[in-house]
């Protein structure tokens, strides 16, 4: 009974998935489950194996080892892959349209399935309109802009009413304003339809915008898979930490623990962190750059921040509207501050500053 309910909730399951290419393991996933209705975002750097994972789950690539179940059905050699693929849809980074009109492209999957003409027409027009490309219906696909082509590709996928949708970096090829617009659009469609989605991207913001759960794939391994706030707030290891935007990751030792606050020795300094870690424990100290405040030495008065370290500026680099400052406190700490603050402090390399951050901003990972 328990198992039946479980398999009903899980639409896709993988076990011991290994993909090798030219003798090298490019993907190694001991276990992965996708629940019905969830949006699972897989993030990772280029070459991490994201597309390989997606193609494997979409039954477009046979793994070297491992087993897959779709809707409780084991995927083996006897299974009719075409029939199963017809319950799925995939959108790639490139729109990959055929040399047909926009309308014909959107209708293509339905046509391949032999959906009757009237039904095909209804669904094609619905999705052309839903994705805002109805007025382009008769236009040859090769004359479309990048954004229009990707909308066509998305409409083609949604028109199939798939039980599971795979998105392989579908927004990566779009210019910034179009990208935001298309992500919003797709997000709304996914929420409205409740369609199960597996989405791979190298972009953290895209993953945060769409994902119910986020998996971090680095070097072919799923290093962490959890709710977004867990992955981004308490990364499981230094690699994940670095990938989710934590720029200060340094090794240290817990030397004291009292009232929920651990004191950690890093180089010759002591940092306080809100964490239940007992003395003697080797840890990684993780700190987001936006949680670090810089003060000039003479203005450093009282503050609620438990950590205050003096150091000297090593590097000052502009980062969009902000400035990224690296300070050497015996170990490097990266701070992200506004340009105004940077000007007020007149930061230059070699200058002494005070680095300040709350004990609650520090995340400790056991080593």
């Amino acid at each position, binding site marked *: 009974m328990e198992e039946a309910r479980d398999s009903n909730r899980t639409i896709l399951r993988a076990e011991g998935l290994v993909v090798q290419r030219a003798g090298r393991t490019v993907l190694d996933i001991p276990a992965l489950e996708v629940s019905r209705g969830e949006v699972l975002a897989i993030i990772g750097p280029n070459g991490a194996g994201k597309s390989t994972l997606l193609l494997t789950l979409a039954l477009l690539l046979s793994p070297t080892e491992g087993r897959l179940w779709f809707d409780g059905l084991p995927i083996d050699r006897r299974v009719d892959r075409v029939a199963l693929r017809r319950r799925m849809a995939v959108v790639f980074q*490139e729109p*990959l349209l055929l040399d047909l009109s926009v309308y014909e492209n959107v209708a293509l999957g339905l046509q391949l399935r032999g959906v009757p003409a009237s039904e095909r027409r209804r669904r094609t027009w619905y999705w052309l309109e839903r994705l805002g490309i109805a007025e382009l219906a008769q236009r040859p696909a090769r004359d479309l802009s990048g954004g229009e082509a990707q909308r066509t590709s998305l409409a083609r996928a949604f028109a199939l009413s798939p039980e599971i949708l795979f998105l392989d970096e579908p927004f990566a090829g779009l210019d910034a304003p179009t990208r935001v617009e298309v992500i919003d659009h797709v997000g709304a469609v996914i929420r409205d339809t409740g369609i199960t989605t597996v989405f791979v991207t190298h972009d953290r913001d895209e993953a945060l915008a769409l994902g119910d759960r986020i998996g971090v794939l680095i070097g072919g391994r799923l290093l962490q898979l959890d709710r977004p706030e867990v992955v981004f707030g308490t990364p499981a290891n230094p690699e994940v930490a670095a990938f989710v935007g934590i720029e200060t990751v340094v090794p240290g030792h817990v030397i004291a623990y009292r009232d929920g606050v651990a004191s950690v020795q890093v180089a010759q300094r002591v940092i306080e962190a809100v964490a239940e870690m007992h003395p003697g424990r080797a840890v990684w100290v993780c700190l987001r750059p936006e949680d670090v405040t810089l003060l000039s030495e003479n203005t450093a008065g009282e503050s609620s921040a438990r950590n205050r370290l003096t150091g000297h500026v090593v590097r000052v680099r502009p980062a969009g509207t902000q400035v990224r400052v690296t300070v050497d406190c015996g170990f490097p700490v990266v701070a992200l501050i506004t340009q105004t603050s940077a000007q007020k402090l007149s930061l230059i390399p070699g200058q002494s500053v005070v680095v300040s951050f709350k004990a609650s901003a520090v995340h400790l990972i056991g080593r």
Partner: protein
Amino acid sequence: MDLIVEGLSRAIVLLFTGDAELWRVIWLSLLVSGTATLLSLLLGIPAGTFLALTDFPGRRIIVSLVNTGMGLPPIVVGLFVTILLWRSGPLGFLRLLYTPAAMVIAQCVIATPIVTGLTLAAMQALNPRLRLQILALGATRFQMLWLLMREARLPLLAAVMAGFGGAISEVGASIMVGGNIQGQTRVLTTATVMETSRGNFAMAIALSLVLLVLMLCVNAFLTSIQQRKRPL
């Protein structure tokens, strides 16, 4: 100069007075080369597609053989087909030597590598991810191949034109396996060779003109399909 002018005028007279022998030669040329091209398409398009879409040990060797085959000297083909069909040869019992069928075989051997090689190039020029996308759309293997060929239709039609061109313009093999027998295996190219060797330039020019016009017509037809703007 007179030779050319006289040749041209006689050629036009021959063509428009409906010289029975000339029309028989034209018809046989079309029949033999058309059949050979058709067979080479039936063999070459699937072979080229297979080579383009699959990977197996020895594939590169086969591809380089196909590429070499695209420039196969007709004389060599003629020689081997003759030996094969020779009365005491392995296929001698078929009694095909000096028949149009033998010419079809020889021209097919010449055209097939051309069609295969150009199909291979056409299919390989497609984005490799397109195949995955088509499969992901729920296509069967057959539907996928059909859509890929449709995408590659322009270079595929070029393959058809090159195959037909290779077949109909070939002469060495046709003479060797067909024998240029009047009323039986005489085609435009073999007849041109014969008339030229006899110093019968007017007839030779007439035959060459017909050959050119024929190729022009066939290629104009195929080009019109290739370059047709699709109705929206």
